[in-house]
């Protein structure tokens, strides 16, 4: 596994700092309501005429915004590159390790959201339980007028 992690490290270190822009589409009320229910957020659905506001964790929790690849193209553990924000990490065991979030503007239904994603840092470490990769990923969510919505600095661990 150490060789595989070293190989992934060599591949991904060249990705540091490169920004990828993705149009996430228009946020629907149904998406917000489903997320609120699944996450048990203290959230009340607005009246029909009012605009729904997203639970604060919504944007940074969603792993994939498109249809995703067919099942035959998923890795054996079910993951796809969208789960690591577009970075390919086949063959390793991946875990989220936390987020650092700034909430700039409320996210509302009907907004078109854009995400700018970049790998900020990658380290190959050798801990007590063996080698691991530590990835720091920055995502900046804006509306389609580049107004900041949420900034998310996220850590992933790959073993």
């Amino acid at each position: 596994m150490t060789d595989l992690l070293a190989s992934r490290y060599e591949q991904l270190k060249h990705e540091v700092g490169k920004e990828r822009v993705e149009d996430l589409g228009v946020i629907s009320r149904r998406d917000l309501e489903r997320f609120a229910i699944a996450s048990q957020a203290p959230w009340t659905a607005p009246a029909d005429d009012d605009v729904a506001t997203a639970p604060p964790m919504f944007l940074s929790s969603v792993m994939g915004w498109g249809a995703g690849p067919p099942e035959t193209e998923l890795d054996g553990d079910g993951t796809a590159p969208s789960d690591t924000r577009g970075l390919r990490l086949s063959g390793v065991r991946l875990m989220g390790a936390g987020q650092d979030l700034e909430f700039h503007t409320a996210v509302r239904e009907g907004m078109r959201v854009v995400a700018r994603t970049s790998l900020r840092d990658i380290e190959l470490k050798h801990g007590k339980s063996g080698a691991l990769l530590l990835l720091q990923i920055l995502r900046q969510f804006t509306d389609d007028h580049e107004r900041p919505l949420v900034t998310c600095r996220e850590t992933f661990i790959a073993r």
Partner: protein
Amino acid sequence: MTKTVLSESPRLAVGVPLGPYPARPTTVQLFRFSAVTWNAHRIHYDREYAETEGYPGVLVQAHLHGCYLANAALDWAGPGGRLCSFRWTNRSIAVAGDELTVTGQVSSVSQDGDSTLVGLQLEEHDAQGTLCVSGEAVVAIPMSAPVDHR
């Protein structure tokens, strides 16, 4: 339940405890959270697969742990409260069926215009006392917001 306005609330002092807020993740909740976040990672819904990775059951998603802490902060803040910033770190795993509890305390209080900014330190433990998640949040509460004394 009595209500006062925020500026009179005894809750707004450093060291005041928060919670406990229970969370009881079920396999159904994990499935639904994976579905709405479009997360097909098998460790969250396929127990047999999760065991091949050495886990005792299907894992609570890292982001769902974050939601539990955020939910606790927002519930504590009450109507009108909003998160300004929030960070959390996953420390240990939890699986479906675990009994999790979020607790915390007020770490700072300051004024910002018509709002009070309250810093919160948050922790989530399982029933054995293992720290699963730690975090910090800053919530803004309108000065005129009613406060429940819970």
